[in-house]
């Protein structure tokens, strides 16, 4: 196998692109070209994102005005929104599918899938992924799982509604809620396929980064994007199989009468035969993926941000080695903190102490990253392109959302805010909004690379400023209703009077949510219009150092028409001065691409 792979690269090394002619199907549908696959991921991800965000608007309407009737429910929810009143089960289904879609389909596949595929071969100087075929299979499995997830919305008894964490017994017993019937079966099937897709993708990314780096591209010269994608893929390979096993056992409990997670249950007037299982076991298995998943979502966004902030600051990223070290530290710690989701699950309190300790440790590499970003801005020459703005926005939400993690990670404090809106506010800011900003930043920055055209910057500015205000407008007030003790996943907060005074805050949140969702249409318009009518992009619009900008604008199979570029330096030689210190290394040009050899009057750095 290895010799075969080796020959394959050797063949391609001096390939001048004389391939057999692509048909429409091999070029646009069953493509094995990483650039096309990345576009497929992006567009599928955006499509799922539209569904996910639309759902959030529906349940936000319900939360803000629980006693009003909205015909929009009837339009979108059919029989569950009859006469403009939302059914409580469908409310739970909406929050469940919103969570599932946003976490897995948008921010895992849509973000990491898009940019890992686009950037890994281009930035490490490879013709394509190690296995183009597996890459194609990975995308089509993702597509299949998306289709099944969307199909599950149309099941007669309703889609899965047990929360995106699908804790059994609720998710195991159709007697407990209608969504746990066929809807949950489809959810599990969809996720099983999704996991297969994610594993194929991740293995491919890891193999590619390890084996296919071009000459001179040592690990310490890799752009931070690649470090982030590489480590993300490793976390995925370590943790996704555990979710698969949990899903498999849940399927067994649901369909084949096993008792992995079920014991002593009396429901719908009868005692079930199940004995000896434990829902806490499921929680452990779920969060063994569930927590690393947060970093699977976040690390690619941080990698993208590192690259964009350095390029647009015209400065090297501050503390490259510390950044790599913190990515590794975060990745390692992320696999041993899952128990902080379970402080009050009934597990042994001593475990709670251990998980508090490891959880608060993770704040250290995160703090280092935040400080390094801020220092990178210091004394830069900031080019405030939309991508740069979203990257700065990411640092902002990463800090504000991350800080409240200090409260939630502390087992003693978690007791009273666990499962309240405080948690919702925290994780939306730190992983949801931050990762979305990373996605937007990536799209604005690499759009010229993907589609050969520029996106409109002014529409980008409008998109950014309204989004950034709106996102804080949504999630900042949520901390207060959380600290007021309001539990999440409540269909309405007016069933008893105690929370009546939170109604106004919920209205504020919903209004911000509607505005923020509406402005995403500006992005969508900009995205689609620019694909067809955008201004033609120059080869290196952002004056960037990384290798993807040395490839021609027109996409060709194999990326570079001639030999693969060789690498002589790290990717952050922005504004580097020559030995005399009177001009840049290359006179009049404040960047030195990675494929430029060391100049005569240049001091060599340790990269």
């Amino acid at each position, binding site marked *: 196998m290895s010799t075969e792979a080796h020959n394959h690269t050797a063949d391609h090394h001096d390939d001048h692109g004389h391939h057999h002619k692509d048909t429409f199907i091999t070029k646009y549908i069953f493509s094995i070209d990483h650039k096309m696959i990345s576009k497929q991921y992006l567009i599928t991800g955006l499509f799922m994102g539209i569904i996910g965000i639309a759902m959030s608007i529906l349940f936000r309407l319900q939360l803000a005005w629980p006693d009003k009737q909205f015909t929009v429910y009837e339009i979108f929810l059919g029989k569950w929104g009859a006469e403009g009143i939302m059914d409580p089960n469908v409310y739970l289904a909406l929050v469940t599918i919103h969570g599932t879609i946003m976490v897995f389909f948008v921010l895992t596949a849509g973000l990491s899938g898009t940019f890992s595929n686009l950037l890994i071969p281009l930035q490490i100087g490879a013709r394509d992924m190690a296995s183009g075929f597996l890459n194609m299979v990975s995308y089509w499995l993702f597509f299949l799982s998306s289709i099944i997830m969307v199909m599950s919305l149309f099941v007669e008894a309703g889609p899965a509604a047990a929360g995106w964490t699908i804790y059994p*017994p*609720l998710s195991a017993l159709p007697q407990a809620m209608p969504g746990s019937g066929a809807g949950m079966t489809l959810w599990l099937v969809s996720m099983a396929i999704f996991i297969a897709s994610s594993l194929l993708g991740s293995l491919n990314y890891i193999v590619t980064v390890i084996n296919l780096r071009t000459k001179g591209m040592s690990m310490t010269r890799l752009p931070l994007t690649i470090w982030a994608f590489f480590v993300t893929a490793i976390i995925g390979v370590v943790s996704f199989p555990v979710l698969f096993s949990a899903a498999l056992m849940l399927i067994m409990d649901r369909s084949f009468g096993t008792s992995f997670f079920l014991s002593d249950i009396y429901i719908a007037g009868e005692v079930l035969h199940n004995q000896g299982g434990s829902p806490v076991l499921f929680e452990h298995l779920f969060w063994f993926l569930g927590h690393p998943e947060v970093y699977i979502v976040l690390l690619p966004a941080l990698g993208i941000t590192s690259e964009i902030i350095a390029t647009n600051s015209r400065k090297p990223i501050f503390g490259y080695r510390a950044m790599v070290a913190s990515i590794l530290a975060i990745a390692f710690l992320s696999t041993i903190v899952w128990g902080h989701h379970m402080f009050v699950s009934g597990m042994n309190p001593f475990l709670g102490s251990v998980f508090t300790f490891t959880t608060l440790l993770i704040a250290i590499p995160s703090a280092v990253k935040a400080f390094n970003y801020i220092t990178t801005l210091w004394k830069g020459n900031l080019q405030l392109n939309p991508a740069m703005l979203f990257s700065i926005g990411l640092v902002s939400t990463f800090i504000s959302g991350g800080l409240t993690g200090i409260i939630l990670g502390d087992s003693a404090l978690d007791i009273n805010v666990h499962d309240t809106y405080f948690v919702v506010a925290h994780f939306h800011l730190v992983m949801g909004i931050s990762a979305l900003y990373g996605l937007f930043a990536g799209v604005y920055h690499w759009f010229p690379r993907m589609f050969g055209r520029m996106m409109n910057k002014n529409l980008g500015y409008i998109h950014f400023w309204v989004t950034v205000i709106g996102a804080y407008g949504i999630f900042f007030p949520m901390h207060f209703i959380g600290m007021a003790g309001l539990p999440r996943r409540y269909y309405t907060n007016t069933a008893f009077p105690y929370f009546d005074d939170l109604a106004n805050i919920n209205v504020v949140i919903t209004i911000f949510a509607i505005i923020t969702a509406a402005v995403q249409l500006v992005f969508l318009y900009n995205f689609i219009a620019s694909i067809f009518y955008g201004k033609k992009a120059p080869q290196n619009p952002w004056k960037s150092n990384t290798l993807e900008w040395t490839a021609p604008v027109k996409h060709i199979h194999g990326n570079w028409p001639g030999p693969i570029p060789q690498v002589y330096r790290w990717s952050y030689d922005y504004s580097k001065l020559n030995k005399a210190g009177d001009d840049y290394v290359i006179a009049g040009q404040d960047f030195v691409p990675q494929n430029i050899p060391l100049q005569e009057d240049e001091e060599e750095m340790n990269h």
Partner: protein
Amino acid sequence: MTGFLIIAVLVLFAVAVWQMKGIFQMSQINKSDDSQIANDKDNRFNGKLMIWFLVFFYVFLIYGFWKWTSVLLPEAASEHGQDIDLLMLISMVLIMFVLVITQFLLHYFAFKYHGKKGQKAVFFADNDKLEFIWTIIPVIVLAGLIIYGLFTWTDIMNVSEDEDTLVVELYAKQFTWEARYSGQDNTLGEANVRFVEGMNTVGIDASDPYSTDDVVTRELRLPVGKKVLFKMRSQDVLHSAYMPHFRAQMNTVPGMITQFAFTPTITTAEMRQNPEMIAKVENINQLRNDKNVELTAKGEETLEPYEFDYLLLCNKICGASHYNMQMKIIVETQEDFDAWMAEQTTFGETLNP
């Protein structure tokens, strides 16, 4: 109030639209430059907006604390709750301190160093000293928080019983709570869902002699100043016994017994006299009165005035009526509690009336 908030948000939206207009106008001036790459004008304009955003951020922060602190939970009504509140306060102050400074630096730098023609960025790739400082400071601060947090946690989760502890079982099922007091012997009888039948709603094992004096109730009454040990069971799916006023929460898990213990310190009557609580209840009743005006106009039934009570809420998604699964908690003096308890029928009496 809602009207005011809506107006505030609309004003903000109008400001946003006005900003967009500015951007459009700017794009008109720069018609010759359509590279879609930020130029000096874009950098200056967006740099300024960074400062305006910072202002918005701080104003929003202050507004939030000024306006919404009144909706937060009142002082903790349990002994350990005061420790949690103190730790929360310390963490919150720390977070706010770091937040205000880092957001300032981030946005101020984004404004200060916005790109200009001829401006040279400083090649500043690393500095071990600086990085050491901002690694070690979080290490020290977090070490302090971890140690403090762990001591508090260990104290809270220590549920050791002594003779004076009141043992109460909380029993959860879709979508109600029941409480079971252990009676004279202060020991709960054995129980399992397999015994659930008719009047025996929580599945008590009638053959266990300890069960005879158990008392099952639909409201939770606790004597003030006495440690209560809750033993929790669930009949069907996961639920969570969340008692926010006591800073207490524990999941109820089918197939196992979970525990949580606390000592209530403030009676319901005292809490109703708490000035913060009086203000909160007044505010809620004001809102309900406003709604009643609407309801009367429509000829519908009006809402009753609200009086404060402690609540036990379900805080783990458990099905369609999850949002309405709660139980009233009353904290009262030992005498009142004993008097109430004497009126209750024991399990033995329920079986053989």
